[in-house]
């Protein structure tokens, strides 16, 4: 599971919105099978960073090197747009905080999952449907809901559907922006358990933005703490949480009851 190269290697990543700093000088290596958490207060640049990594937001400067299956490490930012879009479909997944941003609300649950398979070349209707059913099962959505539209689902079900839609193509890297935000605690726990199982079974790497330190402790191997667009501390998750070095991290950790 540990290759010779990091799966994702990021250096000097900076994105400003006019004079406002989105994120600046971000650098890290993510290895195959690793889950990295990103925490920080609202407006600290977490979504900006995630967007830059996933190719949704063009950064001002920096390198994002991804270990491609065919050609090894390649700078994603230097790729031609069609090539990057293909990589995004075959190797990456992006789970949005709001399921509405990651699902097609007018298309059935089965269609939402099947569409992704077709985007990477699947053509056989029976196989597509079988895989869709399999994935709906894995995220605990009953097979008899396959023809329902996402708007007929609860928030937690929509989020699970979004996860199925994203993982069905067997990506190697998953980006998640607050995947359990807005869900009640028991639904969160279920989603968390699901994600852990998938990470273990599929050997996925993931970058997860969350404000919830308990989620981070249970899900992430390593943790990055952001403030005002800068990374103020990063390292092994339980070390950052149990022995925080930066004043901001100490404040963050001491202001929650237990994580």
């Amino acid at each position, binding site marked *: 599971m*540990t290759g010779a190269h990091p799966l994702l290697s990021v250096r000097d990543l900076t994105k400003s919105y006019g004079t406002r700093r989105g994120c600046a000088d971000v650098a890290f290596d993510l*290895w195959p099978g*690793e889950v990295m958490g990103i925490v920080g207060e609202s407006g600290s640049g977490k979504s900006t960073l995630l967007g830059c990594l996933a190719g949704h937001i063009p950064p001002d400067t920096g390198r994002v090197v991804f270990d491609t299956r065919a050609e090894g490490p390649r700078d994603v930012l230097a790729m031609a747009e069609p090539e990057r879009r293909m990589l995004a479909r075959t190797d990456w997944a992006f789970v949005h905080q709001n399921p509405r941003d990651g699902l097609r609300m007018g298309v059935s649950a089965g269609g939402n999952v099947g569409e992704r398979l077709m985007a990477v070349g699947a053509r056989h209707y029976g196989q597509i449907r079988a895989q869709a059913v399999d994935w709906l099962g894995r995220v605990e959505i009953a097979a008899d809901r396959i023809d329902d539209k996402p708007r007929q689902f609860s928030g937690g079900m929509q989020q699970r559907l979004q996860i199925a839609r994203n993982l069905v193509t067997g990506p190697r890297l998953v980006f998640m922006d607050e995947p359990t935000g807005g869900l009640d*605690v*028991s639904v969160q*726990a*279920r989603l*968390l*358990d699901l994600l*852990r199982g998938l990470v*273990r079974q599929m050997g996925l790497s993931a970058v997860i933005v969350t404000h919830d330190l308990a989620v981070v*402790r*249970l899900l992430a*191997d*390593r943790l990055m703490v952001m403030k005002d667009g800068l990374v103020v501390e990063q*390292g*092994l*998750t*339980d*070390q950052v*949480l*149990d*022995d925080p*070095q*930066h*004043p901001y991290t*100490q*404040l963050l950790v*001491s202001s929650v009851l237990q994580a």
Partner: protein
Amino acid sequence: MTGAAMIVVRDVAKRFTLHNQGGAVLEVMAAASLRVGPGECVGLVGASGAGKSTLMRMIWGNYRIDAGSIRVAGVELAGAEPRQVIALRRATLGHVSQFLRVVPRVPALDVVAEPLLSLGMDQDRARAQAAALLARLNIPERLWPLSPTTFSGGEQQRVNIARGFVHPWPVLLLDEPTASLDAANREVVLSLIEEARTRGAAILGIFHDEAARARVCTRLVDVSGFAVAA
């Protein structure tokens, strides 16, 4: 001591800077050194606040090492990459912490089996081994499919112990493994520790229970000697 030491602590210093409390600095340790070899069970002793848990946490990797060196099975922990620590914990370095932390909703049986699954064991075998330990620690079978989040303190601690002994880690850290246990379960845990030592594990423990310490420890190290002003 037989074989090369599995835990080697050399000249380790540790301080805490409390930025949100006026920048107060606590110098906890100036020069800690110790070695634990295979088949040894070393007990850390010293007054409350002397730094026993702090030293143990630096070896587990959740406290940073400010100066000096800690090697576990040859792997340097000072400045280690997260993935090195994680790999070490997966196969080599086991731990029974004072409190159980689990994903809600996961059954006790799977909580205990998880370390085996992450080592690649198939689910049936992993569950069978987990079940055997839960039974030995007197956790009633009707609790196995339930999440330990609602268990009593003593039940949670036993789940935690089962998880800590489910794989034969060559190095084991034990933080008060017999606290909050009744006599019968305390006896089970002490036997588990003795068996681990007999199979050659290098064990470092904190035992406030003096009788337990006397029974399982082959040697004691007083951490007061590592303090700044000592």
